[in-house]
């Protein structure tokens, strides 16, 4: 609604301009002052004044719209590095807004102030080395500071993940995300091979690798609060991009080239719900690299749990091999005993074998 009011204001601005235009025209006709040879017509003043009016309105409406939108910006970052990049963002934003404001103000003010006057002559002022030096060096210094702080933050964000990180694999496909956890026992993700993908083993988990025996898959992403999380990111078909808006996490998923991003979530889902006053709020993963028809809908839910809840949740999950024991066949003979540990007792095994064969 507010925007519609803003829009109306602008429409009225145009109406005002057109009324002024008409009256200037009428005035010209009445007084017959229009000089055919001159490049300067009687709209010159109107245009010059218009520049200043435009800028004043811009500043007022711009500030108002910013304040109006601010509550809807992404709230406080829910990750450690996110807090850092957010504060850097707003500092940089303040610097550039200052530059933006000063230079635009000068531009429009000069346009207004030095609008044509036939009694004045422009000042022949072709060069001033000192001035030019100043406005080369000052931006250069500001840039250098911004680059340096930015570089340090970037270096820390992209540094090696801590060894105690929870390792989680996110695999993008048209149109969704597969989630795989390193499992409760070895904390290591097993190999995958895209040629092993079938309808059940949609990730192509390679069961000749003993690390994959305890790996489990999930349809939602659970993250432990306050602990480093290493996302190992893959894509199966085309480019995708993992985006966790609240955690300020973004990294492309590239077929044939695993990528990664590690971060520390700092706010649990429950805390965020309380903070936002929305009991049904959930974090989500979105896709930010165009991937086709369903690109906009490619999201899964993310739960940030307290560490003990996370541990409990992980313990409750059944390894892929446990729910799909028929894949024991793919395990090489020398590892069968190790893999067998994950195969539950007979009845469940038959059930899920049947399920597989139905598929």
């Amino acid at each position, binding site marked *: 609604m507010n925007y519609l009011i803003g829009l109306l204001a*602008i429409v009225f601005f145009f109406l005002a301009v*057109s009324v002024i235009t008409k009256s200037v025209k009428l005035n010209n006709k009445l007084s017959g002052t229009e000089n055919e*040879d001159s*490049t300067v*017509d009687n*709209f*010159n003043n109107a245009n010059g004044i218009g520049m200043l009016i*435009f800028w004043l309105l811009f500043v007022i409406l711009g500030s108002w*719209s*910013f304040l109006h*939108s601010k*509550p*809807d*910006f*992404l709230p406080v970052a829910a990750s450690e590095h996110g807090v*850092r*990049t957010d504060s*850097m963002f707003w500092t*940089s*934003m303040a610097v*550039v807004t200052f530059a*933006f404001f000063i*230079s*635009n103000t000068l*531009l429009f003010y*000069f*346009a207004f102030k*030095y609008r044509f006057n036939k009694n*004045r*002559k*422009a000042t*022949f002022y*072709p*060069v001033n080395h000192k001035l030019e030096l100043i406005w*080369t060096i000052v*931006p250069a210094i500001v*840039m250098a500071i*911004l680059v340096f702080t*930015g570089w340090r933050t*970037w*270096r820390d*964000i992209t540094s090696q993940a801590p060894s105690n990180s929870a390792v989680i694999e996110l695999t993008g496909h048209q149109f969704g995300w597969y989630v795989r956890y390193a499992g409760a026992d070895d904390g290591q993700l097993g190999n995958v091979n*895209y040629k092993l*993908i079938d309808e059940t083993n949609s990730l192509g988990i390679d069961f000749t690798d003993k690390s994959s025996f305890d790996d489990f898959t999930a349809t939602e992403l659970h993250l432990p609060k306050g602990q480093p999380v290493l996302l190992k990111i893959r894509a199966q078909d085309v480019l995708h991009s993992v*985006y966790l808006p609240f955690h300020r*996490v*973004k990294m492309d998923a*590239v*077929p*044939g*080239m695993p990528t990664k991003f590690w971060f520390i979530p700092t706010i649990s889902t429950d805390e965020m719900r309380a903070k*936002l006053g929305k009991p049904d709020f*959930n974090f989500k993963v*979105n896709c*930010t690299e165009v*991937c*086709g*028809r369903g690109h*906009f809908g490619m*999201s899964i839910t993310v739960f940030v749990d307290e560490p003990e809840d996370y541990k409990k949740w992980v313990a409750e999950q059944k390894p892929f091999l446990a729910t799909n024991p028929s894949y024991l066949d793919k395990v090489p003979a020398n590892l069968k005993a190790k893999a067998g540990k994950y195969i539950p007792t007979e009845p469940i095994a038959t059930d899920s074998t049947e399920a597989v064969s139905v598929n």
Partner: protein
Amino acid sequence: MSTAISTAEEVHTHDHDHDHEHEHHELGFIRTYIFSEDHKTIAKQYLISGILWAFIGGSLSIIFRLQLGFPGMSMEWLRPLLGGWIDESGKLDKEFYLAMVTMHGTIMVFFVLTAGLSGTFSNFLIPLQVGARDMASGFINMLSYWFFFLSSVIMFSSLFIETGPASGGWVIYPPLSALPQAMPGSGLGMTLWLTSMTFFIVSSLMGGINYICTIINLRTRGMTFTRMPLTIWSFFFTAVLGLLSFPVLLSAALLLIFDRSFGTSFYLSEIYIQGQALPNVGGSAILYQHLFWFLGHPEVYIVLLPALGMTSEIIATNARKPIFGYRAMIGSMMGITALAFIVWAHHMFVTGMNPFLGSVFMFLTLIIAVPSAVKAFNYITTLWKGNLVFTPAMLFSIGLVSMFISGGVTGIILGNSALDINLHDTYFVVAHFHLVMGAASFFGLMAGVYHWFPKMFGRMMNKSLGYIHFWFTFVGVYMVFFPMHYIGIAGFPRRYYTFTALGNDSMAAFTDMNSFISIAAIITFSAQAIFAWNFFYSIFKGKIAPANPWKSNTLEWTTPINPEHGNWPGEIPAVYRWPYDYSKPGAPDDFIPQNVPHSATLESNLPEENAEIAREKDIDGLLGAQNESYTH
């Protein structure tokens, strides 16, 4: 290769491979207006093609803006136009949405702002402002346009095929663009896109070689490099950028064609799609992105530099004041040109590229802000204590400077890799580049059209309509792209059909804002009809233009009102001074054209300029050599 010279008076001796018939007779309709070798006609062909493309590209954006601004709206009324792309429930097809986004980008970047802007004004102004009778090769210049035309026809036809045009975004990243099974637009539509772009690249290379050769070799006597208008400098740097970077896009496109059609794996590796594991291994999707952005980033400056160059000329003329810091302007354009080649990977901070590269490219990217800032400050200082005449061209130039600043400052944010993590591929990026490269270049294009229309068509455009057009466009563009930053900060990704599944928890908050932007876009787009009417009407019915309507210094205004092929009926004028002697103290007029010798302006010469008088004889002495150069 000066086959294009047809003003026969001073061309007495012809080389033997010349076609004598064409030298002495009036050219037929086809050779005058269609397959013309006259740079002015080719420029007009580029301009009119560019304007038509701009309306097509603009209307695509209006359709997808309707979808974004009014997601619940029934699009049934568009069925007569879009047919099957409106689904049974009266909604826009999701793939066609992506196709429109893709084609809007492709059309605007390449067909409007590269061909329509640089193609038009490089062609039109280089020979006229450096004092040449035509381009170095009129024939290659003609071929350049017709390759562009062929490319346009192919791209246009792709809009009408059953599987739809290319839909993977204007950057056409593989594997999406390489695999027809990934989306229908990656089938025939993508083949046509690649074919079209191949011809487009051929066209721009032919154009670029001509621009460079003409600027280096065909400057009139006395037109030293430091007396060239900034327009020419900007076209020169643009051509260098294009010449060095477009071939890389061609190679990227060729490798993609191989991957698509001949089973190679340059970009493809370990892909499982539609229940099938593809045999390709070992390729790299990131390789394509490097190759693409090696053109893609210079491309930003390819569209922007000509606009900045023309703005320099227009602001100086209409401020009745020399451009401030002429050499600094050249230096900063040179700096931008050099840096443009080594900043490309700032588009790729979060693609999985080695983070160390990210650090390097962040550093290089933020350096490029310095010459850009210098340019902006120089424009502002040029206005200071000027005597500003607000012609429509001047208004658009001031608008350009404002957009260049407003869009440019957010580049400092996006060029910072740590900040780019959250903002990459959001509407913040969309707002940034639409202001700094889209709107700024578009304003440059408009400024150029209003300023040089009298030279192009011998008639004036209606100024009042120009003012109205400017104010609608200027206010409108800001209304569209300024609030878009907020949507980006709130975490809305680009190329989303709708925001229903978004995880930023403010899907509903910006519904009004999106509607507002869409309405503003429609108003802005509609206002372009004022321009179209003014443009086409004035070509035929405009007031006859005076010889030098803006009292400008550059050489094009020394030609007849309607210059023939060859531009000057007599000798090409010599150049004795730089192009920015406006409001010189002591001079009777407030401008001294470049062809006025210092010996004729003793009252206004600066002390060091009196030394130039002695050199005038040397310049005049070059006449024979110059004429000689046109005879073989």
